């Protein structure tokens, strides 16, 4: 009980902090913010005429609560297509499969925290029906870290890797 409460409160602060950050970077005046501590939900609405890029409107973090109590769990945790903070670029899973940090078990990872990567450079690999699909950085930057643990399943659009983007894009 106590643990749950703490977890809930922590989630609330985290969500509020997140909303605050989002408001700071919002391109137009927000019309509505909704926060739900049960299942940790946040929603931002902009008036129709002042709508920002469609990707930014709508749910920032959405975990659909199942009607029978428990939230629908997506494999590997956070929902897909989460928004990056301004100083972070997220590399999203281009397909559904298992994410690996290294070319084979025991081998050195493709990249590690602090590494500089170029656009097109392989940073991981996804296994899809026994086929290994290289995952490449879609822009240059410094690796902040992998967001999906080695060998875990990832759904489409799930953030795999965080980068601090380089300005000279």
């Amino acid at each position: 009980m106590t643990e749950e409460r703490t977890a809930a409160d922590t989630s609330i602060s985290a969500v509020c902090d997140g909303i605050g950050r989002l408001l700071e970077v919002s391109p137009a005046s927000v019309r509505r913010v909704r926060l739900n501590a049960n299942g940790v939900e946040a929603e931002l609405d902009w008036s129709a005429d002042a709508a920002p890029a469609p990707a930014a409107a709508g749910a920032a973090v959405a975990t659909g609560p199942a009607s029978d109590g428990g939230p629908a769990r997506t494999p590997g945790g956070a929902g897909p297509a989460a928004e990056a903070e301004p100083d972070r670029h997220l590399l999203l899973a281009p397909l559904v499969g298992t994410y690996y940090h290294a070319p084979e078990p025991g081998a050195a990872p493709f990249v590690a925290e602090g590494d500089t990567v170029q656009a097109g450079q392989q940073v991981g690999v996804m296994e899809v029906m026994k086929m290994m699909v290289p995952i490449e950085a879609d822009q240059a930057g410094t690796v902040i870290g992998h967001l999906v643990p080695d060998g875990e399943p990832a759904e489409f659009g799930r953030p795999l890797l965080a980068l601090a983007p380089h300005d000279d894009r």
Partner: protein
Amino acid sequence: MFDTVLIANRGEIALRVQRTCRAMGLRTAAVYTTDERDAAVVHGADRAVCIGPPGTRSYLDIPALIEAAKAAEADAIHPGYGLLSEVPDFAEVCAANGITFIGPSPAVMDKLGDKAATRTLFGDLGAPLLPGSPRALESAFEAKAVADAIGYPVMIKAAAGGGGRGIQIVRTADDLVQAFQETHSRARTLFNDGRVYVERYVEGARHIEVQVLCDRHGNGVSLGERDCSVQRRHQKLIEETPAPGLDRATAEAMGASAVELALAVGYEGVGTFEFIVDSANEFHFIEVNCRLQVEHPVTEMTTGIDLVREQVLAAAGEPLSLSGDQASGSGVSIECRVNAEDPERGFVPTPGELRVFQPPGGPFVRVDSHCYTGYTVPPSYDSLLAKTVVWGPDREQALQRLDTALAEFAVEGPGVRTTVPLLRRVIADPRFRAGRHTTSLIGDVIDGLDL
């Protein structure tokens, strides 16, 4: 029995399958595209996996679905209808990955998926066929020879088609060669298989299908027939059971024929055997649909049998628990498809936000729908919003209830139109009312429009 069933579909049928799985105490996994994360099936799922960007293609992505099933620890996949439900390769990949495909075996699906080969096979088994080509045709020359022999009008059909897709009617010998070429090349594009065959076209026929249910232990039963003669462009709009005006002896003969054919080919689970019934009440086999049909609820309403439950039980290897007696229905059930389409503009889809979505309810009315007030109908998929199904002790009462239910059905949204007004016109039509309608009814009802 399975632990978790992944539903490899979307829209109303995904929710329909989920309802039964939940009621059977099974866990369900949903798949969704990035534009469908608010889908009802996602909310009701124990697990939900995003499988790709918007569009039907994502739901056809076999590797994504298999990986999703693995991530969700699903031990069975229900394909719904459409999409991958009749793709033998998908069933085979499921099996190779240790996942039960809820449907007939890949070999049977493969065999029955080739409509020309099925014709040949079933002809050999003694099924009543329309006059036509004994096998797929190689050339327009060959097709013309067959057509000339059986007489016009004829239909040119894609061997890999089905469910009304890849069909062209040819009324005179002069048009045959061009129609052959068109169907052939369209089939190559649509199905990656250009083979076609020729069959007599029966003017003013009725489209009647038989629902069969088989287990893997050699037992099979007919769950009665459905009349699906109200169509536009070979797509069904209204379906009912029993078929009005069809004498029971013919109906029973069709049922027996369908079960016999199903058992002869080793069919498992639920399947639909489609027939054409001509004005002399003679029936002719056309094709098999190796899946649940959109219109399966009318059979459920008259028999009290949950077809999805039977599919799941059959796929789990359970022996059929129904006798022919239990399978015989009572009363009349009619379904109509409420689509987000504008019948006055050639049935163009009208996606958009549903500011109001109030389906009917009350006695003897069933609605299968994934929509809700505030739901946005995406432009990327088919336009089926809801199936409205009614039951009545007789056809007259069923029709009255259907009209009342449709009158009650409120759907509003910017730019959104529905088939409700057209459906109400059709069920008020004296020919439909009398049960004397044929597949040409819709064309007659919207006279002068491009159909």
